[in-house]
């Protein structure tokens, strides 16, 4: 945000030459600040350098190419202890991204649902929504996370007493085990069909909008898109001869093997982040809806729109303009909050970085890497949401 100088300040500006009193003061004070910053920075740097040298602590980023030697419990990419520190850190970055993106999506869903519930005309639903928001917002996230992990999830049954759904899905202390699809030879066709369906949907949406503007008749875009996205791959799947195998989780030895597993550390982090941040987003949504003038709703009702469509077609699009900026901040906060993974043992970037500090002592480098990556993520989220904001503002006619 650029802060504009007020005219009052201009009034005071001396109109003398380059060496007028004002300019000299300005120059001197700026020089002082620059000197202070550079001097302070140099002092810190020199002290650190002296400290490192005196203890013969090796510094630099060379360690990133050394073998890490530790294992990681939950990785989305194949990882073994013989991989490098750099690669281990990448595993952490990917985990951070994964849990952040998933939480953002789910927290948005929860936030919108609860926010709409809070302004519902149903008294009971509105109170429940309020209780949820006030309860979650006023308790530290870390407490919610630790509570989830040590109390809620620890209450799940032991491996041998797993909750068993038709022999397909298992739930126990070690996580939620789901069947995993294994693509066979002809699966490429299914993927291609899905890609084609996506293109089809895009074309359909554009055509429907033009058609609507030209003729005034609405096309049931949502139903058609869903049908296209589901049917095209399904047809291809059957035509290609069911090219998919399922790997079922099964108890072998001490643990379940095979299938997809959602581990308790991940689940606790995800649920905690979604519930906590969802409460904040709900508050944004509520405030946004309340800010839309009552007249809009009354006008919509006068036109005969039912309450559901009023919300969907009239109120929410206008509310978005106030919701998006504040929700951007919540998304950014959520990404930063995901660093609390370290408290419950989910191997995110901070957790793996902490292990790296413990294993080789290169704290300065690791903390620098953390900061750089979080700053980059922040910038990315802000850019994306600014773009979304511009889109939402364009609707303003």
């Amino acid at each position: 945000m650029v802060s504009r100088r007020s005219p009052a300040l201009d009034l005071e500006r001396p109109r003398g030459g380059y060496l007028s009193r004002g300019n000299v003061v300005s120059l001197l004070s700026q020089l002082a600040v620059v000197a202070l910053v550079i001097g302070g920075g140099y002092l810190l740097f020199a002290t650190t350098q002296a400290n490192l040298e005196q203890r013969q602590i090796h510094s630099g980023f060379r360690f990133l190419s050394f073998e890490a030697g530790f294992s990681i419990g939950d990785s989305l990419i194949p990882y073994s202890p013989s991989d490098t520190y750099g690669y281990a850190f990448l595993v952490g970055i990917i985990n951070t991204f994964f849990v952040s993106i998933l939480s953002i999506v789910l927290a948005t869903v929860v936030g919108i649902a609860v926010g709409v519930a809070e302004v519902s005309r149903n008294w009971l639903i509105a109170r429940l929504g309020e209780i949820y928001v006030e309860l979650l917002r006023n308790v530290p996230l870390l407490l919610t996370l630790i509570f989830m992990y040590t109390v809620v999830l620890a209450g799940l049954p032991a491996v041998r007493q797993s909750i068993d759904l038709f022999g397909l899905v298992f739930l126990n202390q070690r996580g939620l085990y789901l069947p995993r699809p294994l693509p066979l030879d002809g699966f490429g066709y299914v993927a291609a069909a899905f890609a084609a369906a996506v293109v089809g949907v895009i074309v359909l949406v554009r055509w429907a909008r033009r058609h609507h503007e030209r003729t005034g008749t609405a096309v049931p875009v949502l139903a058609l898109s869903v049908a296209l996205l589901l049917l095209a791959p399904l047809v291809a799947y059957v035509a290609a001869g069911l090219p998919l195998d399922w790997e079922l989780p099964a108890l072998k030895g001490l643990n379940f093997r095979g299938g997809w597993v959602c581990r308790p550390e991940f689940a606790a982090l995800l649920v905690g982040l979604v519930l906590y941040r969802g409460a904040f987003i709900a508050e944004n949504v509520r405030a946004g809806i309340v800010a839309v003038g009552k007249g809009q709703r009354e006008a919509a009702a006068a036109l005969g729109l039912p309450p559901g469509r009023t919300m969907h077609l009239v109120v929410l699009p206008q509310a978005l303009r106030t919701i998006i900026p504040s929700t951007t901040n919540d998304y950014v906060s959520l990404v930063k909050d995901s660093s609390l993974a370290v408290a419950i043992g989910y191997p995110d970037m901070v957790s793996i970085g902490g292990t790296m500090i413990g294993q080789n002592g290169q704290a300065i480098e690791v903390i620098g890497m953390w900061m750089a990556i979080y700053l980059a993520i922040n910038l990315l989220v802000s850019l994306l949401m600014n773009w979304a904001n511009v889109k939402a503002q364009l609707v303003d006619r």
Partner: protein
Amino acid sequence: MTKRWFTSLCAMVIAGPAVAGTLDDVKARGQLNCGVGEGVPGFSIPDSSGRWTGFDVAMCRAVSAAIFGDPDKIKFVPLSSNQKVLAVATGQVDVTSRTTTWTMQRDAKEGVDFTVIVYYDGQAFMVRKDLGLKSAKELAGGTVCVTAGTTTELNLADFGRANGINFEPVVFDGKKEAVNAYASGRCDALTTDYTQLAAFRTTLADPKAHVILPEIISKEPLAPLVKHGDNQWKDLVTWTIIGLVQAEELGVTQTNVDDMKATTKNPDIQRMLGVSGDYGAYVGLGKDWLYNAIKAVGNYGEIYDRNLGSGSPLGMERGKNALWTKGGLLYVPPIR
């Protein structure tokens, strides 16, 4: 504190980063800063009145007694495993005595020096008895709770690789968290040094329901560490601890040390207790340095028995930590 900070800042600005010895700093401060564990029974844990006790704690108390003649002039700083080496390298503590394994990387690269091995341990696995396991190799595919940033974590990965076993590790920031997760059933096994497993077992709801598997998968020579580059300070800590072992060899105990000092004819004991020679001066201390240390905390054997051995809930055998004369590995250089 603020005043001291300010004084040293001024001193630094005026004189540049002058290097004072750690011993001078400690004496000026009137207090030894000792890094310890965050609560490992037997090694370092506060008792119900908040007083720190344990084997590692006793080592620091011995150093404090050697310097000040008082085992309580210490500030104990609990350190997480991520901080245990850095805290001493950056001078936030004067010595770390915290079940820390002596490794080449730490010694040569991370800005610290190890003093002398005080405890020979090895990594093992603890499992529930009802799993019926006989060997760690049967843990294949099992979930193992482990602490981040430790040699334990690396040894676990190495053991898996060497034996072609896949473990599913669950890594925690602190030992307590790892023990809790094991206790709640999140993991099949808990791995750390054998002695600590035995110690943690006593804190579980039903200690008898857990067994420690026989395999010792690593060497864990535990040693107190000091910052790199202050040889006088390193000598002081090293020889104070050596003195405690020497005292056990020579039969000098907390109770008989006064008698010994007054009556002994043994030249070794005379040298050690400052009756003859001035060995304390070699490390910058008075003649009575070891007398004070032994008087305060007893000899090595007494410290062991009180915290880990027969006099403690753990009841550990001396094993490798017996004197060399009794089949153990404790063989320290002489004080002469």
